[in-house]
């Protein structure tokens, strides 16, 4: 596996934006904003890395990289939200 290093910056950027937007829409507290941003970055990197497992080309296209990072960040944020909401509602 060989990841273009500029892709890493893109995934961090996408993850931060998605996490920040999620925190804004949820009107999260200060700690909540930080957690959403961190989860967004982790999810975007996981999503971005997943594109390297696809048999597309030696370097995945920009749109695919952005889309995968957005999906990864959104899915991880949704999963974490679902888990924390379920815990609080018990």
């Amino acid at each position, binding site marked *: *596996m*060989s*990841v273009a*290093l*500029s892709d*890493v*910056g*893109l*995934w*961090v*950027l996408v993850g*931060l*934006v998605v996490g*920040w*937007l999620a925190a*804004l829409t949820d009107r999260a507290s*200060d*700690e909540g*904003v*930080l957690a959403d*941003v961190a989860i967004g*970055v982790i999810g975007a*990197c996981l999503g971005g890395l997943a594109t390297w497992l696809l048999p597309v080309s030696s370097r995945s296209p*920009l749109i695919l990289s*952005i889309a995968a990072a957005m999906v990864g960040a959104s899915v991880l944020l949704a999963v974490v939200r679902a888990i924390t909401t379920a815990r609080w509602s018990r």
Partner: protein
Amino acid sequence: MAHADRLVLLAGVVAAGLGLSLITTPPLLWLLAGVVIATACVGADQLIHAHWRARRRRRRYDLLLWIFPALVVAGAFLVLRLPFFESGIAVVLGVGVSTALFVAVVMCQLHSLSTDDPRYRLARFVLSLLAYVTAFGMYSAIYAPRLRSAFSATGVTVVTVLICLELFRGQQVDGRRALLYASVLGLAVGEVTWALNYWLIGPLAGGLLLLAALYVGAGIIQSHLSGQLTARALAEFAGVGTAAVALVLGVGLLPS
């Protein structure tokens, strides 16, 4: 002393210093920060030298390897003073994550010294990831107190130059050329900070915009250094930068 023991000892010193910084006020705080940053640099350097001696390889003395550990520790000192870290859990998490980041940086630097290392690619990937995350943390921390441009723009310029030196280290480019490109990009991002100081946006939005500027600039320079800078690549970087700026400014300026 084994590598792992040295690293645990060093991580303990960094964690203790970060914890102490939360109950210390200036000017003692600046002294504490200086001592912890210097200890982190010298400790990381000793680990790297021990690593090379164990492999009976030529002793390499590279000041560039001091930059990232120092930046992570300095960034942690700044970030832990943001308003997010007022509760006990947040402080413990902040100190723990900062120390883990420092350990990850030192370990990845050990494996990024030679392209023959089997973990070289993974180490460069993690270092780049941590460089961008550190840049965002420091940009937000510098932008948050809304200091005068003379201080905030200068701080952002210095951080950008140091981060770029670490990013370009993986491009196998000579030191002077890397410093030239890093300085140009540092000045450009500093100029963006100066312009941003006229906008009323939050620290996260400010950090995001500065990170977008760093991503576009560093991406174009890295493409140029690896001989892959084409019109299409340039258009892609410009598109991503424009989209990020439009999105952050659009959302950031919405009435809350």
